[in-house]
């Protein structure tokens, strides 16, 4: 049995230690906010936070997360509320189909926790592993900058 800390709750799973975290989140815990996009850590749709850092859950084996705090999009804000990055995505209209959105938001949260005021070049560098096929990139950059400003004001 492996013990997982996800969104502040403890789960135990009998899944093998090599099983990707993504599969367990989605199929065992019913946390489908993290998406499958490529299975090779190339698109960022499966991004979750591991101790606050963005990781690709499709290439993260369970063994690597035991005893560490996993945050998925479902746990980013208290139920019924929105994280400032989620609010900023809505306000900037930074989504079309929305499939990449949870991964984009969690990557952005990880970026802003490292640097509360990233410039465009840093956003591009940090977010380059997240693919949006609808091409909403300019709006995502705008949303991240707006969320950063909002979070700095309330910090």
């Amino acid at each position, binding site marked *: 049995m492996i013990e997982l800390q996800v969104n502040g709750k403890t789960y135990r799973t009998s899944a093998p230690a090599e099983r990707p975290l993504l599969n367990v989140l989605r199929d065992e815990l019913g946390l489908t906010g993290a998406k499958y996009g490529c299975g090779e850590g190339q698109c960022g749709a499966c991004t979750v936070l591991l101790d606050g850092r963005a990781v690709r859950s499709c290439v993260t084996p369970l063994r690597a997360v035991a005893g560490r705090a996993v945050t998925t999009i479902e746990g980013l804000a208290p139920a019924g509320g929105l994280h400032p990055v989620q609010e900023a995505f809505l306000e900037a209209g930074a989504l*079309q*189909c929305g499939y990449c959105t949870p991964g984009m938001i969690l990557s952005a949260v990880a970026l802003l926790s490292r640097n509360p005021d990233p410039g465009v070049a840093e956003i591009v560098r940090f977010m380059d592993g997240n693919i949006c096929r609808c091409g909403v990139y300019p709006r995502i950059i705008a949303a991240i900058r707006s969320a950063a400003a909002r979070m700095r004001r309330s910090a």
Partner: protein
Amino acid sequence: MMAPGRAASETLMDRRDFFRALGGVVVVLTVEPAEGLQQAPGARSGAQQTPREIAAWLHIGEDSAITVFTGKVEVGQNIRTSLAQAVAEELRAPIERIRLVMGDTDRTPFDMGTFGSRTTPFMAPQLRRAAAAMREVLTDLAAERWGCSRERIVIGDGMVKGPGAAQTASFGELTQGKRILKEISDAAPLTPAGRWSVLGASRPKVDGAAFVTGRHQFPSDLRLPGMLYGKVLRPPAFGASLVSADLSEAQRMPGVIVVREGNFVGAAAPDEFTASQAVAAIRAEWKLTPQPGAGELFEYLKKNPAETQGFGGAPRHEAGSIEQGLAAADHQLRQTYTVAYIAHAPLEPRAAVAQWEEGKLTVWTGTQRPFGVRSELAQAFGLPESQVRVLVPDTGSGYGGKHTGDAAIEAARLARAAGRPVKVVWTREEEFTWAYFRPAGLIEVTSGVRRDGTVTAWEFHNYNSGPAAIRTPYSIEHQRIEFHPARSPLRQGSYRALAATANHFARETHMDELAALVGMDPLEFRLRNAKDPRLRAVLEAAAEKFGWSRRKKDPGVGYGLAAGFEKGGYVATCAEVAVDRATGSVRVVRVVEAFECGAVVNPDHLRNQVEGSIIMGLGGALFEAVEFEDGRILNPRFSAYRVPRFSDLPQIEVVLLDRKDLPPAGGGETPIVGIAPAAGNAIFDATGVRLRSLPLVPHGLKT
């Protein structure tokens, strides 16, 4: 009067009796449940009648909640929002009260599919007519209730008011949750664009919060009780047929169900990992047949005409005499252009959950053609269409790539054998290999131009990629334009804007070559040959915003433009590129695009579509190509198939021309067609190197 006590008498009346009972009242109410909308029994796809009664499209609940039924699906184009706006506008109701049921074959009227930019010009007016007809019904009911003339009834903010101070009723109080069977008139009084208050305004995505919180359930997210996960055995190459399959090892795995039906072999298991292992444990022998390779592709397309016309429509256009046109020219030019196969690569791969219950099949799947997939399923399993239901939750994009029901059929086959619901989600590699591609194509152009810049002759032959936007929007006296369907070595199908991208690339590159040939400015050259005022308007708007006439000629920098027309939309694109001749690197650094598609329905969402089209189009313009050999796809992964990322992003400026005097056209496709030729023309401007193949610089600029 529709007094509450009336409902009891409705139960056993047939519709005609009920008309009579109501006398002059235009409203017809029945007690059929609103949820039970069905297609006419035995009606066949393709010959479907558009339902004429309001209830097929629109229902008002007793609580005044408004439910809209449309066979269209949401794949990121934000029509759930724009169609809600359309109904809110005509029904004078708050958009928050409107909920759309989309792409559910049991509940929504037949629809061919969500493609061809047809939602805005066709579905939105249909729903607006239904809502306007409902508004008339509400007016009639209120006038009867309060015994006043219709003219004294005012509907606004989702309420109905009469002349008296206390005369206020909600929609639900008037219609009492009944189905309204009044026929929708083609002459339903629609609100003109000049008086729009909800349409024409930027409204946020109606259920955006469900997406940013991860709450929305995409097709691949769905789970049913007792559901198994399915995987399918794939051939090693296109054209391979199954000779034998040893299933024994897979069958011995606990909890695994293995299915072989003809060439179909698959497995279902309690989790996806086990299902994959089971399929991997199947020992299959395949017979391969030789397949054309990428090296001979364009020759192959030209030498292998297809017998069917394909893509529909008459593919040939003639005007004047090409020979005469060429004779009248000072210069002639003959060039060949090619485009590669590219993949849609929707971030959500094909996915389906299938469930059999007492012989009835229900499938939730991501598709742009729910009714088409219903037909595919009915055919595959020998069922009447009435025994198949397809539902499409808002899906992780499509771009023309999700027309077929492959995953739906696979899930249904496995679910039937397992006796339990089965989910199939394609892997990225499956999506890159076994979906279908944007067609590759070969385009030959022969033209004549006079020294003054007038194009006198235009001959244009497209092999395989398609006839969309094949006609030139320029006014040229002598034309011969032809589409030649071919046998494609790879499975091919729709892609955002279809062949409009290929045809615009060839046409607008060739126009640029002609401008250079006569030494004219590319903008001036196009304006000389463009008579259509809408085409001229977008060209002038884009050039103005871009600063075309003030552009600076620096080393390594180039500027290009392109323009065109398709599906009711006009587009002009200006691009600036930076080229490093030493390394061969090419970057599109700035793009200005002007777009006009009639009256703008939602400016922010239209901008979003235009921006997204430019960015998606950059991939096919610069580097995307499906590589293949011997029937195998060589780059079926995001690590090998490059798509646009944040770091490819140019500065983008969008100019929307809002023509309130013209009906709205779709905006999700046409804005993609300009970027490839604009970028190619800019590379020529920067370097003098003329590129005539898409992608332009998959490995940088090699000279």
